[in-house]
């Protein structure tokens, strides 16, 4: 139980810059299927960023949603992240993979997406459009009739090595909506990063 927080009693950890991301992975729109979709989200960040309290090993995976009214896929997966940093470079990004669940219980990778998280305070509704790679006419016919759309062989093309993207042909897919609120701690002493008052 903390009894007092005078300046003398503050620890060096109290002066560190921290970010909270609070929100939900809301929904997906514009996907042309009647079959259930699932969204898997993986975090990537630079070396000087630290995830509190522990580093998470598994990516976040949402529930499978079937489209009801208006062809909207609802996930509503809660997101509560806490980072501590020493430098702003290498700010966190989300790698999004959308999976499709058939009637027979098969799971296919449906589309990819990358989204970088904001570093200013406020409320954000992020719209991340997704895409899927294309193969031959043979691969497309197989994926239409049998299942199993083409996937990326080297997934560094998403974020780590963007030079590999020159060799990829893609087709566009739906978009994923993420609702986030950002809280910054102690940023004013080190960087002036905040929304200007209107």
């Amino acid at each position, binding site marked *: 139980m903390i009894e007092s*927080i005078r300046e003398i009693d503050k620890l060096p950890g109290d002066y560190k810059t921290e970010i909270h991301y609070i929100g939900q992975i809301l929904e997906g729109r514009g996907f042309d299927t009647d079959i259930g979709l699932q969204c898997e989200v993986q975090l990537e960040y630079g070396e000087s960023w630290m995830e509190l309290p522990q580093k998470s090993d598994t990516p*976040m995976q949402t529930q499978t949603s*079937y489209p*009801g009214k208006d062809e909207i896929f609802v996930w509503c997966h*809660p997101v509560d992240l806490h980072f501590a940093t020493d430098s702003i470079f290498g700010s966190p990004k989300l790698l999004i993979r959308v999976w499709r669940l058939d009637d027979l219980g098969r799971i296919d990778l449906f589309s990819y997406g990358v989204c970088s998280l904001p570093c200013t305070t406020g*409320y954000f509704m992020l719209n991340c459009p997704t895409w899927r790679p294309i193969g031959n006419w043979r691969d497309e016919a197989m994926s239409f009739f049998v299942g199993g759309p083409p996937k990326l062989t080297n997934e560094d093309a998403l974020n780590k090595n963007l030079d590999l993207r020159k060799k990829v042909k893609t087709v566009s897919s739906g978009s994923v909506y993420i609702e986030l609120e950002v809280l910054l701690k102690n940023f004013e002493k080190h960087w002036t990063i905040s929304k200007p008052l209107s």
Partner: protein
Amino acid sequence: MSLLYGTRENEDHQAKDFTYKAETGPLAEGLPEDYKYPDDGGLTRKGFQRKSRLLEPPAPISDEPYDPESELASFLYMNITGQIETSNIITTDLVQVKYTFITGSEWDLIDGKKSQESQFAKRIPGSNLVTWNMEFQVGYRSLSPEGWPVIVIELRSPTRTPDVNQIKGYACVHVPTFPGTTTKIAKIFCPVKDTWWSMMKAKLWGPQCEIIEDPQQIADCEGREVTSVFYSGQVNVTFNVTQRNFERFGYKTF
């Protein structure tokens, strides 16, 4: 000779003759005793100063300005009010809303009730909206913003047996982190069994919801990889948030 009240001649010795207009005359007959000014001698300026010197001691003289950071044992405080307004869920039944606030382990409830149930509401045949206008008021304190409060909404409708309710869907939304009034849209999802027959029923007659008794499971991430869900509308919620001590902890939220 006309007497002028408040002049130098009549300052003190005429104080007993001084009355307000309402104390005498035809308007004062029905007035209770409390509304008539008693004559303490405090109606003149000198008498008022004499009285105030007795009641209030003089303020202590200090050179340093007040430092709010010198107070002990401070927390982050938050006051959340608002209402669950309307929704565009597709039913012709009566629908009831039950809300619960769910937080992490560090947040303590100071004021208000965590969960309440509303009335059973129906929509007009021509329009889309079901209105509840259900108010909530809740106060929290904590030491860190982890486990930010979440409002979990359950939608229920009555069945033929009394006191047994059938669930239409669940929705959940985070409380906004900045002070002010905001309206948020919560999407309703309806968890459904994975069997073939329940999927056919869902496509033909509408999804039949599974019952989740603990609202903590709806706000959590665990167990979500195995559930399948239908979308059935949205709920509009407005929040009014005020905060205290967030700047002292280092957070600037506005």
